[in-house]
């Protein structure tokens, strides 16, 4: 334990003086060298530290179960994943659900729908709310991942994870947000309540889409590191920090509609700092991140 806290202290120190990630990157590399990757350790790592961008996609793929723990199987399993992608891709062509000019994210959506047995009877059917969530996440992921097949699998498995493992916790998040906002800034909470804005905050954007379309990708991926490795509570703290950061602006607005509209389109220049502060706040309230969900 003493070792642990010392190490934590050290990495916080590195972070402050700008050597951030040197030690972390090395320890991640050691983890990734194992013949059989230790999922739990990888989870703990990405709960504690930001993933170095060169390893992010690999770690996400492992944590989401797209590739199995054994290095030896990676090539074979990715071959299966690729075939599966092209099988469905071709089928959707045959039944004319997609063509050569269908945007990539729409292709992903149709593949995912077919895989989950939810392909609508006709292309003309309107999209369901869950489809909109999928598309938002896919659009953000597309900016982070170059390879379309890898991208599809990441989106699909991430969305599946949100709908299975995190489903119940996600529903609790608005309530938890209110609790923490009450602790952090009671006055702001009172203002939001006075405007009847608390029930109208962009919860779908924040908690269902996990900030896809709200934060730029460079900040977003640091939030997703935490979600993919098991904590959806981080989403609450990002929301709290957004509210705190734009407090003055929000206090100046006096209707729920104006507040929501502002929050759905926050300025994009300060988002890295918001995420850093959110991670700190999450640590303060939830202790050792490895044990919080």
């Amino acid at each position, binding site marked *: 334990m003493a070792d642990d806290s010392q190490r934590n202290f050290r990495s916080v120190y590195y972070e402050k003086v700008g050597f951030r990630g040197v030690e972390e990157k090395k320890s991640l590399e050691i983890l990734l060298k194992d013949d059989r990757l230790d999922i739990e350790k990888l989870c703990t790592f990405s709960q504690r530290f930001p993933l170095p961008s060169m390893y992010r996609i690999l770690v996400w793929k492992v944590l989401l179960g797209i590739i199995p*723990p054994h290095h030896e*199987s990676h090539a074979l*399993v990715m071959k*299966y994943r690729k075939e*599966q992608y092209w099988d*469905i891709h071709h089928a959707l062509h045959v039944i004319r659900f997609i063509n050569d000019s269908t945007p990539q994210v729409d292709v992903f959506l149709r593949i995912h729908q*077919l895989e989950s047995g939810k392909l609508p*009877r006709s292309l003309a059917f309107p999209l369901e709310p869950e489809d909109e969530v999928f598309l938002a996440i896919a659009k953000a992921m597309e900016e982070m991942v170059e390879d379309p097949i890898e991208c599809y699998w990441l989106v699909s498995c991430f969305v599946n994870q949100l709908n299975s493992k995190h489903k119940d916790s996600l529903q609790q998040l608005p309530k938890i947000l209110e609790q923490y906002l009450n602790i952090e800034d009671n006055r702001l909470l009172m203002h939001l309540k006075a405007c009847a804005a608390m029930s109208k905050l962009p919860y779908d954007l924040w908690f269902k889409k996990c900030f896809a379309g709200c934060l730029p990708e460079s900040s977003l991926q640091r939030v997703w590191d935490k979600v993919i490795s098991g904590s959806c509570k981080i989403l609450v703290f990002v929301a709290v920090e957004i509210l705190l950061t734009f407090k003055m602006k929000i206090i100046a607005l006096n209707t729920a509609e104006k507040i929501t509209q502002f929050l759905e389109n926050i300025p994009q220049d300060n988002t890295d700092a918001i995420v850093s502060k959110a991670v700190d706040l999450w640590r303060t309230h939830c202790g050792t991140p490895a044990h919080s969900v």
Partner: protein
Amino acid sequence: YLEDVKIQARGQLQAVESRYKAQKRITQAFELEILDLFGRLEKSSLLKKLEDDKTEAAE
């Protein structure tokens, strides 16, 4: 070590099974499409027949 081999096998098996399930979903989707197309074809030939009858009656 034995456990290791089992875990590795499971990892591969899951991926092949998922590919198989996807193929099954495709078959189902194709089945629906075929039924739908038959339906449309029948409707269109019925329509055609009705129109032919009308034309004949008018003549």
